[in-house]
């Protein structure tokens, strides 16, 4: 987008240059003039002019104007310091304070309160009010995480605007009128929404306070430590509030290119996991069936001995929260020191992986080719491209659960610019409401749908689908604007995307793809070599087994050692408990973990893991932005930086990495990943840099070099156990079979370890639920809350029925990541039987 032209205006006699269309408050800042504001917050969208704090005098306009909602024009003459302005501003402060309790000493906002600052700077300094103030019951919970003090509220609307216009959960409102107005929810229900923590930060007074942070510290007690949240792929930029070496709160560190200044509640309150007293803080070794504390030297030696023995019969699983450095060093140890090709970082595969059908020995050429093609710099969209695209397609994922901040970003595009949104998913998505077109395909049939879509878009080599599928694809295709579309997608079988990308001309500026990986740093891990089909920089390597292949091989005994870096496959990977058996058979399980979990129970050696607050390293955002993790708190107990531990382990195994510091580790990555070449911590800086925008991006592998395309585009390859769909088949056949439903799975936002480990979030921990369409529920004689058993091929999961209007008949949905076998049922036809009445 071209920068708007610059204009000049006079502010208090000083010539100020500002972009055309900027609001006066912002323009004045270019001339070092501060105009006080309360309600103005550009993040919330259009200004509302609710508080009148920002009044200024403009030549030629008889009345005072609100600077926050007046766009500048060339030649404007503005006065912010005249008697009239001062009198008006001081009157506004006086009015605001009429009912304000002025209990700064007990107020949590004291010391960082805009009202304090503005009252000191622009207020009358002395109260004339002698009348009693308005009273409310206080403080009372607005939600389980937020307390509200209505006496302190200055009715600036910010929180209400957030709820109505940013998160669009529409729960908060101003109730009553006049001086009895207050912020609340309908019927006083608790305000429960995934982003609601943002209102704590938005509130310019101490009316909304975080339950977890209340009274913990004053601004002068704390230090701010900027880093990146690695609890999900959004990788929001955050500021840790650290007091006495403990994290007390997490605030947003605005970065328009990543998070727009918002955080989800997981990131805001999940810091409690890092502060949990249950963390493993020293290495553990299993002796006589029990894990016992050991020194680092002993533990490293034990791990090295076991790995040396297993040699190429070792596999590594790198969890999504690992940094690029962790992933790189882990794969280097496994590939170079042990000579094993089995490195995996994706809980359920990635684009074009078809493990079960081929026993993990799929055509490596195509897998890499798919990756190289779909993640190519020319097809990559940045997060801020969503602010420009004319149409957005959300494919195969519900960003609220998989990458929450994108949900807000997409809503913003639709709300503020009228971008056309199309949603094509198996499970109903929360974005459906704002979408122009929605399509539902049967679970596991995303590939068929995408191929049909490619055909509708006119891509060569794809067959148009018949019936419902074809009609759906046609509607979605109709909503997309070639050359100006961003596709947000996730899912393993998306080969048709290549065709869609071509037909939609996604290589054009402001268009492209954003793939939502499964792990927080999924993209980075894949680029530094944590894939069974590609080494660092997606280089050609001997092909290894993918996740389920590794599991089967461990079970069968052909693999003997497993290295789990920040990964708990029993909880997070398809197969769930089956991993427990597989790990139980392994001769050596080396787990790097923050907590004792199901996987460390099978471990022989455990290294304590760092939390993201302690880590130093880099991660790669799904849009290619390299970001820096910086240590905000010291390592507790005997925890050591993971790059250091892995470098030492490598050295013990004969692989000298030469890595002696975190920058060294990055340099090692940069020397092996051509398209990261030369990148350094300094270059990444505080806001990160997209590698696609660096010169080295030209070293991205060429598709033609990656091996011949050995599959016909548009032909879906389905894992064994499922029948490949015919063109036009929506997978809806299940409807005809009594009691049988095709099951899809999704990773609920709260189905994560962080929910269980953070006391503030624990109430959100989901229970396994089977979502059914009303028609299917009626057919199966099930009601909401019934306990059922969901079964297929000997795998069974217990769940509670929940009935949803928008679920496609014939489909049902289970939650992944709860430690049961739900993820193994993905895409399967299941039988459902009643196991209990509602409680």
């Amino acid at each position: 987008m071209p920068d708007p032209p610059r204009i000049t205006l006079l502010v208090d006699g000083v010539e100020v240059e500002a972009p055309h269309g900027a609001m006066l408050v912002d323009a004045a800042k270019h001339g070092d003039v501060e105009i006080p504001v309360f309600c103005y917050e550009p993040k919330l969208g259009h200004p509302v002019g609710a508080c009148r704090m920002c009044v200024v005098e403009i030549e030629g306009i008889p009345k005072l104007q609100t600077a926050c909602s007046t766009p500048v024009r060339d030649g404007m003459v503005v006065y912010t310091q005249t008697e009239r302005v001062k009198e008006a501003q001081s009157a506004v402060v006086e009015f605001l304070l009429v009912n304000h309790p002025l209990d700064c000493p007990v107020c949590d906002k004291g010391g960082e309160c805009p009202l304090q600052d503005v009252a000191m700077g622009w207020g009358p300094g002395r109260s004339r009010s002698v009348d009693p103030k308005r009273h409310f019951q206080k403080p009372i919970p607005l939600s389980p995480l937020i307390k509200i003090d209505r006496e302190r509220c200055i009715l600036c609307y910010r929180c209400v605007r957030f709820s109505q216009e940013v998160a669009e959960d529409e729960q908060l409102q101003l109730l009553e009128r006049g001086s009895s107005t207050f912020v609340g929810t309908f019927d006083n229900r608790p305000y429960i929404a995934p982003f609601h923590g943002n209102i704590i930060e938005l509130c310019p007074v101490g009316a909304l306070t975080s339950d977890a942070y209340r009274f913990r510290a004053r601004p002068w007690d704390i230090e701010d430590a900027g880093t990146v949240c690695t609890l999900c792929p959004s990788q929001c930029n955050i500021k840790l509030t650290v007091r006495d070496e403990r994290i007390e709160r997490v605030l947003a560190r605005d970065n328009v290119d990543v998070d727009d200044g918002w955080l989800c509640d997981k990131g805001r309150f999940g810091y409690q996991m890092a502060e949990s007293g249950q963390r493993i803080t020293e290495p553990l070794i299993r002796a006589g069936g029990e894990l016992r504390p050991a020194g680092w030297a002993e533990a490293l030696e034990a791990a090295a001995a076991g790995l040396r023995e297993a040699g190429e019969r070792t596999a590594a699983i790198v969890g999504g929260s690992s940094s690029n450095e962790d992933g790189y060093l882990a794969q280097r140890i496994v590939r170079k020191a042990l000579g094993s090709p089995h490195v995996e970082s994706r809980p359920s595969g990635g684009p074009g992986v078809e493990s079960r059908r081929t026993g993990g020995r799929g055509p490596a050429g195509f897998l890499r080719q798919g990756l190289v093609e779909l993640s190519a710099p020319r097809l990559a969209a940045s997060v801020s491209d969503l602010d420009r695209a004319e149409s957005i397609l959300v494919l195969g994922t519900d960003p609220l659960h998989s990458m929450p901040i994108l949900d807000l970003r997409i809503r913003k595009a639709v709300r503020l610019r009228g971008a056309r949104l199309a949603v094509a998913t198996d499970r109903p998505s929360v974005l459906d409401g704002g979408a122009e077109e929605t399509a539902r395909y049967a679970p596991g049939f995303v590939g068929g749908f995408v191929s049909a879509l490619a055909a509708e878009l006119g891509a060569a080599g794809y067959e148009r689908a018949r019936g419902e599928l074809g009609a759906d694809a046609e509607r979605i295709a109709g909503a997309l604007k070639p050359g100006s579309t961003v596709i947000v997608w996730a899912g393993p079988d998306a080969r048709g995307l290549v065709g869609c990308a071509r037909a939609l001309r996604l290589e054009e500026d402001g268009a492209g793809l954003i793939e939502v990986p499964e792990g927080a740093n999924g993209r980075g891990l894949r680029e530094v070599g944590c894939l069974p089909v590609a080494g660092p920089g997606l280089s050609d390597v001997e092909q290894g087994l993918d996740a389920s292949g590794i599991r089967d091989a461990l079970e069968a005994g052909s693999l003997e050692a497993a290295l789990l870096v920040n990964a708990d496959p029993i909880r997070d990977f398809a197969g769930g408990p089956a991993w427990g058996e597989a790990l139980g058979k392994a001769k050596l399980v080396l787990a790097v973990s923050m907590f004792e979990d199901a996987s460390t129970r099978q471990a022989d050696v455990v290294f304590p893991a760092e939390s993201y607050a302690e880590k130093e390293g880099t991660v790669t955002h799904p849009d290619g932005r390299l970001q820096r993790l910086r240590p905000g708190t010291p390592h507790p107990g005997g925890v050591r930086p993971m790059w250091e531990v892995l470098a030492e382990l490598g050295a013990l195994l004969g692989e000298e990495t030469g890595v002696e510091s975190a920058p060294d580790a990055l340099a090692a990555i940069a020397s092996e990943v051509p398209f990261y070449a030369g990148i350094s911590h300094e270059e990444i800086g505080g806001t990160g840099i997209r590698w696609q925008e660096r010169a080295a991006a030209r070293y991205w592998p060429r598709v033609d070099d990656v091996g011949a395309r050995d599959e016909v585009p548009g032909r879906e390859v389905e894992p064994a156990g499922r029948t490949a769909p015919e063109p036009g088949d929506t997978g809806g056949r299940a409807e005809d079979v009594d009691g049988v439903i095709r099951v899809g799975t999704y990773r609920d936002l709260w189905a994560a370890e962080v929910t269980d480990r953070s006391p503030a979030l624990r109430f959100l921990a989901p229970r396994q639920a089977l979502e059914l369409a009303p028609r299917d529920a009626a057919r199966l004689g099930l009601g909401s809350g019934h306990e059922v058993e969901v079964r297929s091929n000997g795998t069974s999961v217990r769940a509670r029925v929940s009935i949803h209007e928008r679920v496609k008949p014939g489909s049902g949905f289970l939650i992944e990541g709860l430690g049961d076998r739900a993820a193994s049922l993905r895409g399967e036809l299941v039988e459902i039987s009643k196991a209990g009445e509602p409680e």
Partner: protein
Amino acid sequence: MNNSADSSSEAEVSSEFPYLEDESVVAVQRGPEPGGLGGAYRAFGETLRGLKTTFARIVEGPVTIQYPEEKTPVYPRFRGRHKLHRFEDTGLEKCVGCSLCAAACPADCIRVVAAENDPEDRVSAGERYAEIYEINLARCIFCGYCEVACPFDAITMGHEYEIADYNRDDLIFTKEMLLAEPLERTPLRREGE
């Protein structure tokens, strides 16, 4: 650097002392040396003048105070070891744990960790109270800023000055120590004394 009031004389000096140019020499001005009579007066006259005071006080008797049996009385506004206060009627602590004293303290020796009051079992009157309140008296400079900053007069400077101890750690006074009445009261100086 410029100690000379007369810039012209400095210019002269600087021509004599090339060092001045790199500002390595400080020119000091002295008064004239007194001559014979003046010197004698300075040697004896001034000394006798001082001794006059000494002899005049002899008749007043010794003023030695037998510390520690006897204590020096202090002025009412003497800034000694701090005290935290309670409300006399309710017994609740006046301190609400606002940390303003900590913010004001130039020596950074106050540590306040606040917590939320349980309405059933209050510690202080407000929503919050000081769960931990510590002053490191080894660092305190007894400036009294904390007293001035406190919005509730919860902390005041007391009169106690016997704070010495064998161990630095023992100089960190906790809330309980600061709330307790000192065992021995420091005598106060009376009006006009």
